[in-house]
């Protein structure tokens, strides 16, 4: 633990605090509801991608099935509220715990798999859940759930008149995800995860309990992802399996981290800040034609970034490439 290392970690916190403060003031300037909407989504995806990054980036277990946890968070909250009148906050927590438990249960058999076998297993498991929800009548099947409006309040976490409360929650969510990652990065877990990612066999021989490290990363990652799902359900107030549990969502959670800088603290934030506004703006300004121009642009950006900056856009900010494994 050297001095430069401590300094860098302190600098990360300060920069994050300044950015969060600036973001918190943004609504004073930005009154346009459409732009506010994009800001909410950007913060949400930054947090979700941060959650994905814990398992996929730090621990190196590439999951393309995180839509499962996102969907579980959304459904737990929406079902508890509409069927039993349980406040969304408890639904959110319940969805998070449920997802973490399911991640542990699924981790038990899947973490024995490596490489593409693991990736495909995560996709397939999320697809099974999607099909089950599409056919589960009690949960609304393919029609989904319309969350009834019961008046604006923080207790019910519903706001129909203004997007701002959602914005501040998303900002808080993003900050919490950042802080958790910041803290984990330098904890024994962070070092275990990087060891597992770089060389699982060597890590095992040095006494890192590889299996337990993966399980820990999966649980934290799934918990945070479900919180995001619960938030999304409240934010859009209508969910169906196709809008919260499809493969597309799994990719949207992984993309910002990958393009921003996989396994780095700032990668997901940077990736989301660029990718989400770009997606939303192109979708509404040129996607409306239905002629796929937004997809052409989006696809091109992904290919270009992946080829030109394989270590992620974060590489633009560091003068020298970071050594693998240990943070400087």
């Amino acid at each position: 633990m050297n001095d430069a290392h401590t300094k860098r970690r302190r600098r990360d916190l300060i920069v994050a605090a300044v950015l969060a403060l600036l973001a918190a003031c943004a609504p004073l300037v930005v009154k346009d509801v459409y732009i506010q909407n994009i800001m909410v989504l950007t913060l949400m995806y930054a947090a979700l991608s941060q959650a994905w990054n814990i398992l996929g980036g730090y621990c190196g277990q590439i999951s393309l099935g995180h839509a499962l946890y996102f969907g579980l968070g959304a459904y737990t909250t929406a079902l508890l509220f509409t069927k039993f009148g349980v406040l969304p906050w408890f639904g959110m927590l319940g969805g998070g715990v449920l997802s973490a438990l399911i991640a542990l249960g699924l981790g038990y058999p899947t973490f024995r798999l490596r490489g593409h076998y693991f990736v495909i297993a995560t996709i397939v498991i999320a697809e099974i859940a999607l099909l089950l929800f599409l056919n589960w009548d009690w949960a609304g099947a393919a029609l989904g759930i319309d969350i009834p409006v019961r008046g604006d309040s923080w207790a019910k976490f519903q706001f129909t008149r203004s997007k701002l409360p959602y914005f501040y929650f998303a900002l808080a969510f993003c900050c919490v995800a950042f802080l958790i990652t910041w803290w984990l990065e330098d904890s024994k877990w962070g070092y275990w995860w990087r060891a597992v990612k770089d060389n699982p066999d060597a890590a095992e021989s040095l006494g890192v309990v590889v299996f337990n490290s993966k399980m820990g990363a999966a649980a934290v990652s799934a918990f945070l992802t479900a919180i995001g799902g619960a938030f999304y359900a409240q934010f859009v107030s209508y969910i169906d399996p196709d809008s919260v549990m499809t493969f597309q969502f799994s990719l949207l959670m992984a993309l910002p981290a990958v393009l921003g800088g996989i396994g780095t603290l700032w990668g997901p934030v940077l990736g989301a800040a660029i990718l989400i506004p770009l997606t939303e703006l192109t979708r509404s300004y040129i996607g409306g034609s239905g002629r796929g121009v937004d997809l052409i642009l989006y696809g091109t950006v992904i290919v270009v970034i992946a080829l030109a900056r394989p270590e992620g856009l974060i590489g633009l900010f560091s003068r020298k490439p970071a050594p693998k494994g240990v943070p400087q």
Partner: protein
Amino acid sequence: MTTATIIQSLASGLLMGLLYGLVAVGLALIFGLMDVTNFAHGEFLMLAMYITFFLFAFFAIDPLLAMPLVGAAMFLFGALVYLFVVRFAMRARANIGMVQIFTTFGLAILMRGLAQYFFTPDYRSINVSWLGGKTVSIGGVFLPVPQLVGAGVSLLAFGALYFFIKKTDFGRALEATREDAGAVALVGIDKNKVFALGWGLGGALVGIAGAVMAMFFYIYPDVGASFALIAYVTVALGGFGSVFGAFAGGIIVGLVEASTALILPPSLKSIGIYAVYLLVVFIRPRGLFGSM
């Protein structure tokens, strides 16, 4: 559920399975050769189906005759994708696995967008091909002719691929590069040429599959997505690194899908495939015949 129904669905499942194998084998070939999963594989299939459709619409070429043309066009396309895109993804020094996944994934989105732009999102179909809509009865089991011919084409393609890999110089170079790309360079084989050939061959195979599929499936920009996941599962089930695992994987997937449809509602028929995949890799983490 009578015995006749069961035999009938298993027979259609087997035909479909051979087609799944044909769709997947290009993916398996590319993966086995250079450890890259082409996430745009479904979009390759989509493009092949469109080429077949336009050959039919503009030049009245029946899909059956178009097959070699589509195969040749997709050979070229596959090789070009390698030379202009994937080759650069292979050069990445940092997290190469993710770079490959997301380069090919970006390519998939780009191709889908281009298809929407140039071909419109409309559903198209080839309605009056030579074989379309015809069925034959073999021992009381009714089989659609396009699928039957498709299954035959799949068998031929696997046979030809086997011959190509085992008996020709190009095929041996392919096998050798797969085993040790570094050593191959020492004996003067250009790795890039072999990889481009591999991508071309993978493209040609999915091209032939697309020509068959175009006879009885709707053709639209997103059509690849529905087959891509089945293709990945097929390859992984058979085992990465084994080209002929895709053959076995395809047949298993087809049969499992048909039997699931007998028990569960049709909307859940894919669950059987996914469950069997998980079951297999939980017991054998390298798939059925995988080497890695």
